[in-house]
């Protein structure tokens, strides 16, 4: 099982390198990759080299990275909020990070500014959602209040994004923000990828270290505390790690909806709720899922479809099927 989850993204990655307008054979792709990884040269054409290394590989790597990051973050949020229906989208994190990034584009801060600003926006959003829930719920129906609070926070940040767009220069800044918010991996190059992989790696490492502790929150805060868990510190560490990963993804690729909700949910049905298995499996499946959707986005029609649009269109019916399966509707 573990081997399968490891092979899946690798295989999908190799196949994805073959997809595109410039025709490449598997042998050429392997020769180019081999030539880069091993100390021998290769005799593939120079165009093939550029297409694989400079164009397709960063994009494939970015799809795997963003898909894995959003899925791990979604898994972590679902774990700490004890709710299989929350995700970076529903908690308002994606909207908050989107606002942060849009603001940074407006102020022309550059890539590092976009990352920091996206992280700040995402953390502000999830904190607001959590505080509203604590203030309003009073220990009763936390799940419902949490989701409603996320909707409100998401709406507020969507309004702030609209405000940023309203004041943006309509000739070049406005289109930049608009296309970027639709979510796309088209413009990703190696430097962006490296910049995003640091915060994503730190977040993922933190979550993997805390994988078993996440299980301990399954029965509620008081229960976890009675088991000896410092709940406040654990939740803070997990929220910061998951938000860091979400924000870095948003800064790299714009807002890509539903991945962080659908993938953890589906993975839990496959491998069970234990985060020791769930986190790595969700990362593998999430990366593969986003890669396949991105392949479709860049090859279905001659003009590229923004990725965020496609994940939402694909993810929504998929999620409804899961919902029906989980809650056993018969109608």
């Amino acid at each position, binding site marked *: 099982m573990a081997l399968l989850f490891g092979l899946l993204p690798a295989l999908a990655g190799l196949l994805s390198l073959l997809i595109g307008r410039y025709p490449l054979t598997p042998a050429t792709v392997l020769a180019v990759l081999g030539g880069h990884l091993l100390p021998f040269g290769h005799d593939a054409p120079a165009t093939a080299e550029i297409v694989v290394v400079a164009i397709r590989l960063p994009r494939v790597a970015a799809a795997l990275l963003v898909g894995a990051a959003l899925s791990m973050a979604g898994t972590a949020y679902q774990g700490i909020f004890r709710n299989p229906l929350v995700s970076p989208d529903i908690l308002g994190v994606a909207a908050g990070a989107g606002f942060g990034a849009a603001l940074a584009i407006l102020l022309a801060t550059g890539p590092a500014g976009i990352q920091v600003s996206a992280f700040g926006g995402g953390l502000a959003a999830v904190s607001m959602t959590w505080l509203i829930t604590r203030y309003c719920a009073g220990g009763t129906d936390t799940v419902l209040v949490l989701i409603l609070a996320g909707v409100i926070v998401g709406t507020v940040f969507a309004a702030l994004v609209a405000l940023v767009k309203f004041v943006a220069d309509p000739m070049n800044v406005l289109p930049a923000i608009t296309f970027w918010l639709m979510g796309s991996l088209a413009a990703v190059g190696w430097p962006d990828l490296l910049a995003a992989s640091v915060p994503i790696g730190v977040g993922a490492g933190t979550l993997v270290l805390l994988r*078993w502790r996440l299980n301990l929150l*399954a029965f509620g805060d008081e229960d976890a505390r009675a088991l000896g868990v410092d709940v406040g510190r654990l939740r803070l560490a997990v929220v910061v790690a998951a938000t860091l990963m979400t924000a870095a993804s948003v800064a790299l690729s714009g807002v890509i909806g539903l991945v962080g909700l659908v993938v953890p949910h589906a993975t839990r049905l496959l491998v069970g709720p234990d985060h020791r298995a769930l986190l790595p499996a969700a990362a593998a499946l999430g990366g593969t899922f986003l890669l396949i959707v991105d392949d479709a986005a860049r090859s279905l029609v001659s003009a590229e479809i923004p990725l965020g649009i496609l994940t939402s269109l694909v993810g929504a019916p998929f999620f409804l099927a899961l919902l029906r399966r989980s809650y056993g509707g018969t109608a």
Partner: protein
Amino acid sequence: MVAPVLEIEDLVCGYRGRAVTSAASFVVRPGEWLFLLGPNGTGKTTLFKTILRLLPPLAGRIRLDGENVAEWSARRFAARVGYVPQAQVTPFPFRVHDVVAMGRAAHLGPFATPGARDRTIAEQALRDLGILPLRDAAYTTLSGGERQLVLIARALAQQPVVLVMDEPTANLDFGNQIRLLAHVRRLVARGGIAVLMTSHDPNQALLYADRAAAVGRDGSLLVGKPTEIVTESYLHAVCGVDVRIADVVCPDGRLARLCLPMLRS
């Protein structure tokens, strides 16, 4: 007499500085089963949460083995005191053995996961309660009685010296109530563990308790032998129910005391 393991000294409990109970003092010794009785709304749960350090005390002290626990970390406390909540729900279908292994948290470092030794301890806890066959079942598919046993097994995996149980029989049918209490009785007799438990049933206290503590209408606490605490006058005053206390001769010749509510014509 054995030295007490848990000492409650002049403990005042409440929320946000507003006292719900008056100062309570009692001790629990190893191998002793103490029942905490009292109707709803008298601060029983508040007292319990304060003892478990889920609420800060307004005054007074809690000692474990003579040491004030006020400055203890949650982890250090949990390595000594196991808590069995009322049948808990979770949206996630964890396996029973995974749930029981969660009891090991207090004995593991922050980034550690349970090892072979922890799994052995968890299995032993399942075996002690006779629910080893459930080990691979999903917790979410169990009945209320099975869930309660799993949560007791989890608390035993903590290897505590004090076991705190919040109305463990509240959601169980009659047969499961008796079976669960028989398990606890065996744990107390065998392991020298101290059990502090709340219950609504005065007959349970008469049958099983070594000592009983009863919360009065005014929030005061009365501690003593069960036969001294569960009396006609106490139940009339606190629960507003007329009862008769009767002694029944069991087949083995022992006398069992029970209380019987009187019907009003």
